């Protein structure tokens, strides 16, 4: 059966499916589409248990209350010729149904408190990662006390064509990024969460981590993941136009694999440093610029520079005008608009490449080269 046909079947069975699947799949664990997932951390399992306990308590009380109500609806109806009773108070009953719920709440508060304290135990981490929310992407920075920090941005990878229904949607539609966060399994990873512009919220359900990313403040949270794998999440706090398009992908790997990955990242960072001093040909800049553009500019300015959320770059007076002004716009952004300051987000090599690309692609035939040193000098002022 095709995807569409399956959906139609499910939808017609909708209400039945809703009730039965809720009961059958409630205990179904990670793949459940109707219930919380216990996830892959101890905290996640504790939260899941709390969730199930409180859901159970509510269900039992609900069945009791609705049971009494439906009994009345069926047996105490006027059409059965009953005469209404006249009682309207009972101190004993009223005290009982005040005190009993209170006691249930106290019982419930005990495990809730201990899980909360566990969530707040941010000490003794094996690895610190600074997570910064940007409109609309995440930046991850591995804090290394003995050398260079490794940092990169993680952008939505889903093609615009999929979003606008021009291409078939992939399996991980809207939940895929160009560069996932990589962390080691069975290690306590502390996330220091902040934001660059507005408030975002870093949420990965399987890790049972949700923390608001607030500009100017750093929040702490942590996870010790017990199982390797790829876990996906999204920004949870409304952060502007593309709030729905800044997913999170966490790749949890063995320690050895992690070390190797981090080592390569460190090498890459060193290589970029070397590149800063080089001069590039126009072709090299254009090739690099094209990929930088696809990652950072395309979502707002369009695959062919035709514009969208942002202004068109094809034929734009900025991209075909004075280079210094063009650099200003890309490096410092345009305050009060969606155009961000990319000066802190792109290294000088990528910045030079993307500027060159914008000036010579999409029919903007400027043909001038921007070198990393030009960007460096411009930033220095």
């Amino acid at each position, binding site marked *: 059966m095709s995807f569409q046909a399956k959906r139609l079947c499910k939808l017609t069975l*909708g209400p039945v499916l809703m009730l039965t699947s809720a009961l059958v799949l409630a205990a179904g664990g990670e793949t459940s589409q109707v219930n919380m997932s216990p996830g892959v951390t101890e905290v996640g399992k504790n939260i899941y248990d709390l969730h199930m306990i*409180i859901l159970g308590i509510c269900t039992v009380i609900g069945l009791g209350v609705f049971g009494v109500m439906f009994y009345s609806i069926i047996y105490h109806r006027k059409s059965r010729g009953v005469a209404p009773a006249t009682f*309207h108070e009972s101190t004993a009953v009223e005290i009982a149904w005040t005190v009993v*719920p209170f006691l249930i709440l106290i019982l419930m508060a005990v495990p*809730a408190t201990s899980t909360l304290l566990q969530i707040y135990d941010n000490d003794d981490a094996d690895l610190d990662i600074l997570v910064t929310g940007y409109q609309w992407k995440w930046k991850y920075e591995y804090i290394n006390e003995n050398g260079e920090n490794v940092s990169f941005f993680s952008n939505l990878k889903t093609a615009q064509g999929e979003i*606008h229904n021009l291409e078939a949607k992939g399996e991980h539609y809207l939940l895929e990024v160009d560069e996932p966060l990589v962390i080691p399994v069975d290690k306590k990873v502390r996330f220091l969460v902040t934001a660059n512009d*507005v408030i975002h919220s870093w949420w990965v359900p399987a890790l049972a981590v949700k923390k608001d990313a607030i500009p100017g403040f750093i929040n702490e949270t942590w996870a010790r993941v017990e199982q390797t794998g790829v876990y996906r999440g999204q920004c949870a706090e409304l952060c502007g136009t593309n709030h729905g398009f800044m997913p999170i992908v966490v790749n949890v790997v063995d320690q050895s694999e992690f070390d190797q990955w981090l080592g390569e990242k460190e090498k890459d960072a060193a290589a970029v440093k070397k590149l800063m001093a080089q001069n590039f040909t126009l072709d090299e800049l254009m090739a690099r610029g094209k990929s930088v553009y696809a990652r950072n500019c395309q979502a707002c300015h369009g695959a062919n520079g035709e514009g969208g959320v942002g202004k068109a770059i094809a034929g734009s007076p900025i991209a075909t005008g004075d280079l210094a002004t063009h650099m200003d716009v890309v490096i410092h952004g345009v305050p009060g608009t969606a155009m961000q300051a990319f000066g802190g987000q792109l290294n000088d090599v990528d910045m030079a490449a993307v500027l060159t690309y914008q000036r010579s692609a999409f029919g903007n035939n400027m043909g001038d080269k921007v070198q990393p040193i030009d960007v460096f000098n411009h930033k220095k002022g």
Partner: protein
Amino acid sequence: MGDYHHGPAKGLSRWLFTTNHKDIGTMYLWFSFAMFILGGSFAMVIRAELFEPGMQLVDPAFFNQMTTLHGLVMVFGAIMPSFVGLANWLIPMMIGAPDMALPRMNNWSFWILPPTFLVLASTLFMEGGAPAFGWTFYAPLSTTYAPPSVTFFIFSIHVLGLSSIMGSINIIATVMNMRAPGMTYMKMPLFVWTWLITAFLLVAVMPVLAGAVTMMLMDIHFGTSFFSAAGGGDPVLFQHVFWFFGHPEVYIIILPAFGVISQVIPAFSRKPLFGYASMVYATASIAFLSFIVWAHHMFTVGMPVAGELFFMYATMLIAVPTGVKVFNWVTTMWRGALTFETPMLFAIGFLILFTIGGFTGLMLAIAPADFQYHDSYFVVAHFHYVMVAGAVFSMSAGIYFWLPKWCGRMYNEAMGKTHFWISFIGFNLAFFPQHFVGLAGMPRRIPDYALQFADFNMMSSIGAFIYGASQILFLYNVIATIVAGKPVSDEKVWDGAEGLEWTLPTPAPYHTFETPPLVK
């Protein structure tokens, strides 16, 4: 029939200059229904876009404007004014007063509303679009990063607050000073009690909201940094101030609904309300607790653990008085002689669905679990169960209950029941699946979603369209009743209804009690 010294004026001036509580109540009710349709049509845009994965109808920026305006219009334009309308109609009739205590202010508090919503709606056509930062308008998205129309939004909020405060002062003054002889506080109908407490909540928190938007205004135009860390301020301060208003606000919306249900259920159970005194105390406790639980909306902002614990415990406590209310309603039905006319159906619908919303509220109170629920569709489902099935269902119950008294004509019962069943089914189809997608990890306020959420979202959209369409039936039924309903001659309309309002002639005369009734 009473001796009219002066009846209503003719034409438009009757409505513009009226100081009559019934005319003003009528205008509030029609206005709020218009806003309900406007806010509802924004919801239809949202649900149409979310019908399938992918962007189809609107762009993400417009989608955000829709979610923002839907929330603002529904809360401030539909639900709040509708209960003020009900209060205007009923409080003088229920306490044996001739009119509201401050009739000219009453006129003013209504008439500043329509222009304000005109301003708010006009932001849709401004450069940069309407506010797109959600009805909770968290800074700095609503300050540094807001569209220019935010200034008009701030102005609207100020005027809405002014209207609410004037309306509340009027209700407090009326209830305290204009009760008929013998109508002691503990004899007042529960609807009057819940509104009295609501009015105090409004007077207490609307100025706080005004403070929040004033600080925003200063940050945007006058260079202050209340909510900007770069200037020494704190974005989280905004959330504290907002929710200090916002949490009592949800009780402002639901308490009058409790009042309506407490009138309707005894009438159709033919049995007095169970636990009247405990109902009053429970309402007062809920109102008090509403001031000390605000930060449960903010469990993920990074509060100290002591703060989290305090707000978790305080929030869990609310379950106790709310439980008392639900138990009292059910016990009122117990061993009554029940009939199921439309108002009773809506009241029972309220009871079931509000209780479900209360349960999910208790779940949300568990702070560790809230780390998973927060800002997901689970929250959207929760507050629609308490706002729509709570406030709107009780409003429908109230309209069907009192409309025959007001206009002296009976609504069409079959159509009323049809309205109930379509609403009930549509509502549940729309919002029950949202619990599932929320628990499975779908964040709220997103214009597009991953494929695993597709089925439940389509179901939800279909349910929303059904629920929306059912309101047209409601509108038709109300208009048909007023224009051509079967005349009601009986003063009581409903054999089980109790209270001073039912002792007035039917239809209710233009001036209510010209000589105060004596309450034994």
